[in-house]
């Protein structure tokens, strides 16, 4: 296990370094921040002074080495726009995004598992057809369109829920969260639902497929032959079996939830890192974009790693195979 962990950590560092290079080059291509930051009527001397102050006058390789060296010291650069360390900006906004992503994931699981089970246990019935049709809609309609429909229906027509911004926060177990008050929760419902819809469809399909594949297996029949209740067979034998692929996919998808949050946060003006990213791209605020990408990649890598560990805990064959 220790060897496995170390090897995975090494891989992660290489991926991170490669990402840093790609990100740096990619961001360098998106335009000259000087254009945005320096007033058009500035003299060439003033302009040169600003560029020098920001380090933008030096050759590209030098900038890259400086960039890497700074990152290693935890310095991701200062936001041109906010004049704050970019990493601090990202970390300041991260809780809002994580809250959104985790609540969306919770919605996807809490609704998706039972719906998928129901559909899988009653294949080709009206229940199954209804659930699967819903999940096809969840899959195929564009996320931003779903978001706008949610706003139209629940905020504009029915007026039940607010459609923009994050509500008041309180603390639960030392974590600052919107879940502490009803008003906070009300603000969270629409964006979290929007972000959850795609994953909900995915969880439903994975669960249904898993149930359909597991039910005909011999061990299910043997479990019946032992006289177990159908309830125990489904909730223990079948669920534990399908949890393995499910956890893998969900773990990977948590990363993409954070990435997809860009769209949802923009539609619902949710003050998370996704919205910050879009704003920063518009203003060519290079250090923030760079810090965002590196943080998201680092999160992806960490999640993958955790999924692998969790997977090996769930599947005894893997745990022992690698020990």
């Amino acid at each position, binding site marked *: 296990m220790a060897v496995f962990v170390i090897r995975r950590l090494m891989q992660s560092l290489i991926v991170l370094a490669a990402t840093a290079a790609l990100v740096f080059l990619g961001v360098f291509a998106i335009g000259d921040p000087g254009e945005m930051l320096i007033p058009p009527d500035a003299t060439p001397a003033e302009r040169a002074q600003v560029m020098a102050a920001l380090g933008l006058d030096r050759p590209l390789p030098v900038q890259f080495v400086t960039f890497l060296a700074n990152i290693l010291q935890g310095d991701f650069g200062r936001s041109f726009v906010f004049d704050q360390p970019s990493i601090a900006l990202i970390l300041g906004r991260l809780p809002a995004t994580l809250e959104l992503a985790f609540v969306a994931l919770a919605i996807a699981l809490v609704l998706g598992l039972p719906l998928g089970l129901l559909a899988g246990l009653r294949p080709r019935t009206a229940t199954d057809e209804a659930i699967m049709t819903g999940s096809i809609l969840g899959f195929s309609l564009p996320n931003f369109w779903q978001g706008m429909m949610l706003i139209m229906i629940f905020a504009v027509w029915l007026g039940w829920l607010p459609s923009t911004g994050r509500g008041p926060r309180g603390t639960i177990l030392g974590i600052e969260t919107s879940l502490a008050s009803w008003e906070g929760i009300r603000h969270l419902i629409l964006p979290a639902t929007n972000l959850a819809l795609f994953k909900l469809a995915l969880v439903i399909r994975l669960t249904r497929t898993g149930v359909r594949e597991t039910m005909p297996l011999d061990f299910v029949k043997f479990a019946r*032959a032992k006289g177990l209740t159908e309830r125990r067979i489904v909730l223990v034998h079948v669920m534990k079996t399908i949890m393995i692929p499910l956890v893998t996919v969900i773990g990977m998808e948590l990363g993409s939830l954070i990435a997809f949050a860009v769209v949802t946060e923009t539609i619902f003006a949710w003050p998370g890192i996704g919205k910050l990213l879009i704003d920063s791209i518009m203003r060519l605020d290079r250090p923030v974009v760079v810090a965002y990408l590196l943080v998201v990649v680092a999160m992806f890598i960490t999640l993958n790693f955790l999924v692998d560990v969790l997977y090996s805990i769930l599947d005894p064959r893997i745990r022992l195979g690698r020990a």
Partner: protein
Amino acid sequence: MTAPLLDVRDLRTQFGTGVRAVKAVDGVSFTVDRGEILGLVGESGSGKSITGFSILGLIEPPGRIEGGRILFMGEDLVGAPREALRRIRGKRIAMIFQDPMMTLNPVLTIGTQMVEAVLAHDAVPRRTAVERARDALGLVGIPSPDERLKAYPHQFSGGMRQRVAIAIALLHRPDLVIADEPTTALDVTIQSQILYEVRRLADAFGMALVWISHDLGVVAGLADRVAVMYAGRIVETGTVDDVLDRPAHPYTRGLMDALPATAVPGDRLRPIPGMAPLPTSRPDGCPFRTRCFAATDACRAEPVVTVAAGHEWRCHHPIREPAA
């Protein structure tokens, strides 16, 4: 004479409906007495497993029991409520499956799978259930059962997994065990060990046993009585001596001639010509007539069952006439 423990009458189990229905079990009748070992023999596809699953109420759609009765201790299991069937499964009637690699859930420990089987029928404390599971493992010859309870199925060999399955089947000391070719998937050396083990335990606990096999030789050494199955029906039943020494049905004869131990030494083995017909394309009348050396036009008609002192066969041209 007391009533038999299990009395299956004209059991018919099919998959699908209408003209395309697969009649896997097509009018099977047999009885099993308390403590008796019945060998159910036939080529693969003859409906042996489906017969076993029907008894336990384990036929799932599109399959269903079309007709007949399964009287277990006088109570008809056909159409019995689900919960009533559940209470019988594993408690009064247990089953051992063919492939031990597939019968245990790979993601649950042996202990979990044994303890849940205890708790499914007996409201005992967990600790008691664990003790019973451990004792059952010891009984079937699994070394250091305490540790093995914490192990997962993949940590056991095929033979050991089958022993675990047997231990599970024996947890509640059932009245009847249905063993569906439990040695077919195992190495030859392991086969005889398992065979011996099951026989010993059935004897020790006075359990009745339905031993399903495609191998007449295995059944000859184990069973009290034999039922020979062909194309979803039982074509011959009787004591091992009756059926093996004086087979009446040409199919039984054919099975014996195909066996190394009973064939005349020096002769080549004579397999039955042709293949067992698919359930969808069985000949009318006697389904064996297309492969039978004794077949005549009379065989186009449905053969009736002839009974002679506990020996029964279903054939127009039995090999021997009943002893007067």
